[in-house]
């Protein structure tokens, strides 16, 4: 074998190794980037941390109590398409009479599998199983349940960038959503003396991507800060649908208008939480989050999937 042939083989080998791990990582689907939404989940597996997520609200009690929630979630891709998230929330509730209760809610674990990413349609579909582990939080302070819940969930995201060019600025819109069926491991709570309902847990977001507008539709030469913004409206709802004897089948939840600023390594989100009815809370709350893109911060270590960093062999692009 000639020396130049060996050299070419070595270069080819190096290129294969060097680019075997090319990845899309956090939620890119074609030209569309779906940010991590605050109240609902985005439709992709990823290596990321939401820390902290902070919310303040007033409960539906009469008179209302003031509630602080401080939570963190770590998401790790095991393979390119399968990921696990672990999260927990610390809660403090101050009643109107000054009584204070604080402690952890139950530990939550989510297993997710990426079913589809269609770049040309800007469409992503994700399946998941969310588990809240009973008795892992402050059951004594009545902040955590003694039973577990399992919530099989389907997530989706769809960008409108595949609309005809005549739709112009409308193409920067995208929607995401999730629908889950929550099943408790117990059907009756003997302490509260109440049935534990099975519930539909669902939500959606409507988002307008200024980064997409600038890079795909029209560059308005706005100040750079505005080109990183994604205004968003989220809806997060829960409806009891079974095993709810003697209780009303009232849907509760919030509508959250807000904005997400997206950077190269992290994003920051801030939303108002508007209860949809009296049973969902009293007055407007606030929700904020710092979210880190580990795949961009540590692309060659903890930002990669544990196994099989790439699903397809690298290829030289030839248009």
């Amino acid at each position: 074998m000639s020396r130049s042939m060996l050299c070419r083989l070595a270069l080819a080998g190096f290129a294969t190794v060097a680019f075997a791990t090319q990845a899309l990582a956090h939620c890119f689907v074609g030209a569309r980037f779906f940010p991590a939404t605050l109240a609902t989940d985005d439709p992709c597996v990823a290596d990321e941390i939401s820390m902290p997520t902070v919310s303040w609200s007033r409960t539906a009690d009469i008179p209302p109590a003031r509630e602080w929630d401080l939570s963190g979630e770590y998401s790790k891709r095991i393979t390119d398409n399968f990921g696990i998230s672990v999260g927990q929330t610390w809660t403090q509730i101050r009643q109107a009479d000054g009584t204070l209760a604080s402690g952890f809610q139950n530990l939550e674990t989510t297993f997710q599998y990426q079913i589809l990413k269609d770049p040309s349609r800007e469409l992503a579909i994700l399946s998941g199983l969310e588990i809240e582990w009973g008795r892992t939080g402050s059951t004594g302070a009545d902040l955590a349940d003694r039973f577990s819940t399992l919530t099989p969930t389907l997530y989706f995201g769809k960008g409108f960038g595949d609309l005809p060019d005549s739709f112009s600025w409308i193409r920067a819109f995208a929607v995401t959503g999730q629908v889950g069926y929550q099943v408790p491991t117990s059907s009756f709570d003997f302490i509260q003396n109440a049935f534990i309902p099975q519930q539909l847990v669902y939500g959606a977001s409507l988002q307008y991507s200024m980064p997409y507008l600038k890079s795909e539709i029209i560059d308005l030469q706005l100040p750079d800060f505005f080109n990183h913004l994604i205004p968003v409206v989220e809806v997060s709802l829960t409806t009891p649908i079974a095993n709810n004897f003697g209780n009303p089948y009232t849907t509760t939840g919030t509508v959250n208008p807000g904005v997400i600023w997206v950077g190269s390594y992290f994003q920051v989100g801030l939303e108002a939480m508007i209860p949809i009815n009296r049973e969902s809370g009293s007055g407007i709350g606030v929700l904020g989050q710092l979210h880190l893109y580990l795949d961009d911060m540590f692309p060659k270590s903890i930002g990669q999937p544990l196994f099989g960093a790439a699903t397809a062999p690298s290829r030289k692009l030839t248009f």
Partner: protein
Amino acid sequence: MRIIFIVAAAALLAAAAGGPAHAHAFLEHAEPRVGSTVPTSPRELVLFFNENIEPAFSSVQVSDANGARVDLGKPRIGASTMRVGLKNLTSGTYRVRWHVLSVDTHTTEGNFTFHVKQ
């Protein structure tokens, strides 16, 4: 919770210290600008990215309304720029399709139009 906090703190420290991170390559701007109308045929298209890109795995094509290529072939790639010569363009709408691999091996892609009105 403690583990999550420690990992988050380590990640923040690494980011603050300007560690070895490289992010996805976003299109910062283009000449001709995305969605713009230019009065004469531009001699070349230039794409500016926010991260350095890999020449061997990055590409761009420009086509007219009928899908015919109007670029002059292989792009010239600098650290974070990609430029390609253009044929003499008549009045009309032209679509740019790009696909790049940033130096941290993340791929990004996009497409946009610009218009020539002579």
